[in-house]
């Protein structure tokens, strides 16, 4: 008797536990289509104006006037910032946080992408001279004025000296020469480039740092400067200029920013911004935890992926958040083919000569392009939250070649192309004209579910063509080593992040001796006399495109480069994910833009109502 009661008791416990598990919160019918872009209906505020109050030249926000106070909690995935030194950021998290604290002379218009003044009041371009006039009377957080000396110091002693992250120096260097910089008066400086150089102006978004605070460290050289402003620097010592200043950093937990009372931007009532008292970044290890934190109400904004989009869209109607579709992101996912016909240092071929004949054949590459099912990938792998990609520039890019429309998968066209190239079918198996079976390796980095699934789909698509594909996901670092050092690979699925504003940033991928010229990587200092005709044209395009200053002159040049890639297919673009964000409705003045993202205007947002 006792035993029976005992077992019944156990059974009840288990039933209760299982009952707790089966409760569903995902509706049965997930709508197949994703929310269409709703940011076209957003009425963006007018452009910021300059306004002078008591001799101080403020920047005036034209967004509607909000309430002061409150705090917004957002998240950053990963291990948090590695440094708050804006000149030494090498990862996105550090860069965005240092970017909150330090502003540049210029910034980017969130809607049109053009360069607009920020710390600068105005700028003028005459030939190769860029004259920049600074706002008068604006201050660092410690009350000292921001002057031309700070600008000169930042560029001459940090950027040009090659301290910290040298990306800006690299981008400003034209044929080994750096621009000249002279101080005209306390608020005016003049840059002179050695030759016309289009990407230059955008480099002036580089953060300006306070000379009186940075100089003692920059004088001591690279290693001291690299350790300067590391995350455990005492926050009240840091002198900055941005809308928010650092209040607290707690390792692996959070970064708290508070409003900078000396900020140089005012609202329509001429009250100094920002509205928020605090901006808090929670450091979360992975996206699953981020979702849980959003659901528990601990954070106010969330980037959505894949299947979550449909779920959140359904729950949106009676929730306290709103979903924005920001369009495709800057990331591109592609299949890259190794066109190398060189031997490595040991005298072995990078690519087997039999395969070289295939890979270096334009028709062979086009056949692969026609066989790849991009729509299927978007539907099955990205759950519809992506857009097929056919161009080297990402869909958000202001230089996107809109004439390239792309094409559906068509196996017949592929087979036609292969026959033209001399390939033959025997029992649906593809052989080249010398009777070799078409078989090669396809690599990607293991651990990325998206890329692995893409690999499986491409393998299936190409097997329809009678090719044999050995799909090998390998560890990310080993893959990069293959791509950039050893070059012993056939095809790979990879992704890169491009700049939506400046195609010249991708020059290391496209010019024939760039160090990221994945599809035909030449060793350093290699004579490039074995270029394809179209590689020569690409080299010319990237040379020429940088010399033209006017957008309308540059556009056709970069259109042509996208055409070349589309025709020659050394890299076959697959798809770009779409960015979908959820943000609490209590946060006002949110004007998401495809170029700048969701919360670029943290100085203008405020909180109204909605305190649950």
């Amino acid at each position, binding site marked *: 008797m*006792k035993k029976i009661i*005992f077992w019944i008791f*156990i059974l009840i416990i288990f039933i209760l536990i299982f009952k707790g598990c089966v409760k569903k919160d995902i509706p049965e019918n997930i709508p197949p289509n994703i929310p269409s872009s709703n940011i076209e209906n957003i009425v963006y505020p007018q452009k910021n104006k300059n306004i002078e109050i008591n001799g101080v030249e403020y920047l005036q926000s034209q967004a509607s006037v909000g309430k002061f106070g409150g705090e917004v*909690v957002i998240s950053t995935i*990963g*291990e948090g910032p*590695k*440094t708050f030194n804006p000149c*030494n950021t*090498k*990862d996105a998290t550090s860069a965005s946080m240092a970017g909150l604290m330090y502003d540049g002379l210029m910034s980017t218009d969130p809607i049109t992408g053009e360069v607009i003044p920020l710390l600068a009041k105005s700028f003028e371009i005459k030939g190769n001279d860029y004259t920049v006039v600074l706002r008068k009377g604006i201050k660092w957080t410690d009350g000292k004025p921001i002057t031309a000396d700070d600008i000169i110091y930042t560029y001459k002693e940090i950027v040009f000296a*090659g301290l910290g*992250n*040298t*990306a800006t120096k*690299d*981008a400003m260097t034209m044929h080994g020469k750096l621009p000249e910089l002279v101080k005209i008066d306390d608020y005016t400086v003049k840059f002179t480039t050695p030759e016309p150089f289009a990407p230059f102006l955008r480099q002036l978004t580089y953060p300006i740092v306070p000379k009186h605070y940075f100089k003692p460290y920059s004088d001591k050289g690279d290693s001291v400067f*690299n*350790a300067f402003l*590391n*995350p*455990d620097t005492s926050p009240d010592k840091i002198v900055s200029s941005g809308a928010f200043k650092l209040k*607290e950093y*707690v*390792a*692996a*937990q*959070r970064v*708290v920013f508070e409003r900078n009372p000396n900020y140089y931007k005012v609202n329509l009532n001429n009250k100094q911004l920002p509205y928020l008292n605090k901006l*808090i970044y*929670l450091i*979360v*290890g992975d996206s699953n*935890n981020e979702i*849980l*934190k959003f*659901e*528990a*109400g*601990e954070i106010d904004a969330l980037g959505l992926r894949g299947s979550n989009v449909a779920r959140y869209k359904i729950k949106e109607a009676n929730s306290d958040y709103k979903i924005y579709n920001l369009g495709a992101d800057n990331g591109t996912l592609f299949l890259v083919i190794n066109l190398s016909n060189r031997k490595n240092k040991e005298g072995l071929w990078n690519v087997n000569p039999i395969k070289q004949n295939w890979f270096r054949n334009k028709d062979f590459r086009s056949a692969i392009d026609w066989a790849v099912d991009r729509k299927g990938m978007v539907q099955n792998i990205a759950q519809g939250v992506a857009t097929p990609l056919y161009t080297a520039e990402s869909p958000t890019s202001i230089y996107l070649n809109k004439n390239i429309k792309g094409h559906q998968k068509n196996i017949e066209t592929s087979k036609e192309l292969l026959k033209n190239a001399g390939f033959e079918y025997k029992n649906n198996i593809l052989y080249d004209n010398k009777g070799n079976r078409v078989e090669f390796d396809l690599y990607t980095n293991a651990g990325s579910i998206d890329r692995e699934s893409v690999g499986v789909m491409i393998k299936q698509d190409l097997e329809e063509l009678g090719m044999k594909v050995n799909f090998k996901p390998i*560890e*990310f*670092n*080993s893959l*990069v*080593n293959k791509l*950039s050092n050893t070059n012993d690979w056939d095809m790979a699925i*990879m992704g*890169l*992040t*491009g*700049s939506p504003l400046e195609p010249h*940033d*991708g*020059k*290391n*991928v496209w010019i024939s001796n760039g*160090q*990221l010229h994945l599809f035909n990587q030449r060793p*350093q200092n290699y004579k490039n006399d074995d270029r394809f005709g179209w590689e020569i044209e690409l080299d010319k395009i990237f040379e020429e495109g940088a010399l033209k200053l006017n957008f309308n002159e540059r556009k056709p040049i970069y259109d042509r480069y996208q055409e070349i890639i589309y025709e020659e297919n050394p890299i076959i673009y697959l798809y770009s994910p779409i960015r979908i964000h959820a943000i609490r409705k209590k946060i006002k003045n949110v004007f998401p833009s495809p170029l700048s993202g969701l919360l670029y205007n943290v100085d203008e947002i405020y909180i109204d109502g909605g305190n649950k």
Partner: protein
Amino acid sequence: MKIFKYIGKRLLQTIPLLIIVSLISFFIIRLSPVDPLAELRLNPSISQETLDKEIKRLQLDKPIIVQYCYWAKSFVKGDLGYTSAGEKVSVKLKERIPNTLLLTLVVIFMTWSVGIPLGIAAAYKKESFFDRLLTIFASVGMAIPSFFFAILMLIFAVKTGFFPVGGLTSYNFNDMNFFHKVFDIAKHLALPSLVLFTISLSGLQRQMRANMLDVMDSEYIKFARAKGVSEWKIIFKHALRNAVNPMITLLGFEFAGLLSGAALTEYVFQYPGLGRLILEAVMKSDINLVMASLMIGTIMLIAGNLIADILLMITDPRIRR
């Protein structure tokens, strides 16, 4: 006096051990085809010049044995070097060690103060309803994977809102008064320590029960019973003292696990401890950080065993000889 000689001998023995462990792990990490600069290499806006500078800074251009010598030299001097992002390893560890210690100490305190009495009680009331119930809970506790249990707990926290979703402190922690601070930390610690508690409790409780049963069966306990010694005295004076020896060895291992035992749970709960730091370091092949943590793990293990042995010498006169 003898005991100090023993300790000295044991400490000397650790030196070759440390050298071997560090050598093997250094080579394994460096020989794995993991490139710490992979992310930089894939960034189109990074120039070759910058890459070369980074390679030099991380000494990747030198042979592995030379890299090892550099590392060993600074390690002996007490300098743990810099992470690949340029932060001081010692600073990073200092940020995390107290958090991990807090969690593991709370858990060890809880498991030992509950597990030992439960084990004794279960052994004393052998095969009773109470013992069976404990057996079932112990089986469940041992069978359930810690990360899975942790995820269940997280979902529980989200659905009910009783507990925060991971972390150690709330974002407005610094504005709180002392009592709120204590309460805040307790709230954050509750779920991760519950998970670790459940899992290690079962093992400990079973172990104690088994030891106790062994001893209770022995001749001298029967003799004591026959002599009419009170049950209370039999258990706590005679049985427990003999049953506790294996537990002391276990305590040594617990000590070794102080800094590394909770890594999985820490990761799921986004607990700002060592586990999360090391995991990320391993993935990025951040050699100085990984080596530092491996060395800490080794030293803790050796120290734990040493402490256990010393404790055993104190409790068990047979070993002293």
